[in-house]
């Protein structure tokens, strides 16, 4: 099975201090550390496990700048067979549709059975996977947390629904899936593993290789434009109810009734 996984280099959100920069156009990126988007990493692990079971290759692709190369290389150290960087100044300022167009152009150069994206990115809008499927006119399943290979024409995918249940669907290949975290336990990538792939070539494709018109990508092609960037005002903190358990329960019932939570 020929599998392609789209990955993105994102800032670590957990311990980074996120502040809006002085001219309000972006976050301050000076002190940030970056890594592969967590959802994408789960997708790559899943792709590698599928390939190890049924054969084929795993290709990792990223739309970014030269710094994105380190993320592609890490996924190759993890076990992906090849990596491609899609980079061009003309891509800057692309909206979700622009990113999907760029990926589509690369995907159409090959013949892939399964295309995976992460369900969302730390700093994204959870839209590229769906848009990509629509542009490629392929079936799409989102928030996938389980994959079963039936044969080279069909697979089963699972999605978590209410009550912790899993909804299983059959989907025909080729198709696009967006992958949810927790689908597997990604293997560790050590520094030694990364050094082993340090000199493997990662081709860079731009607008000319991909045959993209410049009005389809970048700021020029963006239908969505950022108007403002700000940190929301802090609201009041939570109200902590005090008293004995009965008193707290009574107060809580009163509040719920008053705010229309219960009749």
């Amino acid at each position, binding site marked *: 099975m020929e599998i392609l996984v789209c990955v993105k280099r994102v800032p*670590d959100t957990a*311990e980074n*201090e996120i502040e809006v920069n002085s001219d309000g156009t972006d976050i301050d990126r000076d*002190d940030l550390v970056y890594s592969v988007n967590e959802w994408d990493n789960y997708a790559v692990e899943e792709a590698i496990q599928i390939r190890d079971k049924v054969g084929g290759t795993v290709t990792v692709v990223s739309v970014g700048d030269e710094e994105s190369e380190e993320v592609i290389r890490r996924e190759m150290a993890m076990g992906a067979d090849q990596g491609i960087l899609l980079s061009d100044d003309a891509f800057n300022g692309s909206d979700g549709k622009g990113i999907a167009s760029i990926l589509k152009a690369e995907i159409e150069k090959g013949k892939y059975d399964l295309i995976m994206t992460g369900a969302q990115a730390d700093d994204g809008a959870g839209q590229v996977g769906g848009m990509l499927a629509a542009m490629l006119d392929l079936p799409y399943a989102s928030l996938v947390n389980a994959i079963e290979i039936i044969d080279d024409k069909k697979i089963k995918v699972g999605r978590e629904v209410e009550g912790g249940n899993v909804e299983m669907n059959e989907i025909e290949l080729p198709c696009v899936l967006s992958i949810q975290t927790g689908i597997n336990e990604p*293997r*560790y*990538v*050590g*520094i*030694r593993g990364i050094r082993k792939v340090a000199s493997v070539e990662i081709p860079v494709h731009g607008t000319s290789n991909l045959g993209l018109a410049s009005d389809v990508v970048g700021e020029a092609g963006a239908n969505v434009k950022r108007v403002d960037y700000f940190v929301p005002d802090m609201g009041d903190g939570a109200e902590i109810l005090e008293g004995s358990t009965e008193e707290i329960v009574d107060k809580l019932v009163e509040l719920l009734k008053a705010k229309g939570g219960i009749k």
Partner: protein
Amino acid sequence: MPLGIEYIDKIVDLRRGMVDEGMVPQSLQKPLSAIGKRGNPWGKMEKKRADWAKDKEFAKICSVNVLEKGATAETLYFVDSITSYDDRMQDIARSTSKILNYAGIDFGILGKAEKDSGNEIMRFGEEMLFQDMKEKNTKAILNSGAKLIITADPHAFNALKNDYQGLPPIEHISQTIVRKVKSGEIRLNSAQDNEKVYTYHDPCYLGRHNGLYEDPRDAIDAIPGIKRIDMLKSRDRSFCCGGGGLMLFYEPEEEQRMGVLRVEMAKEAGATVIVTACPFCLVNIEDAIKVAGLEGEMEVLDLAELIEQHLVD
């Protein structure tokens, strides 16, 4: 009976193989990659590593020299990650600094140039990441011009002393205290509370791994009138608190927590205060006292905190 068979190096070798295969428990993957990116297992920002020294009350009475931009000092206080970033453990850093200041030692800290000492990283089998930390720390330490390194963290002590090369001599704070008490530069008040019975818990990386049993005890005994006893399992027969350094991130499933057993041993020996000389022991035993339901009956504090409390004005 298989006494005398060294197994630690074999386990580390097995782990090295597993790391290469990607077989590292999920709970340890984040701390390891955080150390690679930020030099500490929580992934907190490097520039905040010396923030413990900026505490308002503390900074008024004790200034800590952060060696940046080519600054040098005779002695380096190597703080390491947990003491630098954990809210409770930062108290140890402050107590240690006060003791060094009091004893007239000209010392500095590396601040954001300090990376995790890597004691656990090496033992988890991530050799290349350990080498990375070792290289960066060695460079920073040599740049500081220090002729002596002092640390209050036995894990850092173990790594710097045994796994690093080309460094100036390293001392644990208990050795510093004993030295300065003998020379008269540290003078201690008598024990205040006659009811308290103290017992010293030997940290694994100070005691059994490095043979340092007497200096911490001598440091405690230097407090006039203090009541100190030893647990049955002490010195080279000691019982691990169960912390294991960065293994604290691992969260194993266990029926009986080692820390709880240890706290019960202290109680059985007749102690009301456990003194330890390792930040990981401190956090693990503090937690174990709560789990064992012994709050109010048993206390724990770090050696540096105990000594600092008794410094003569």
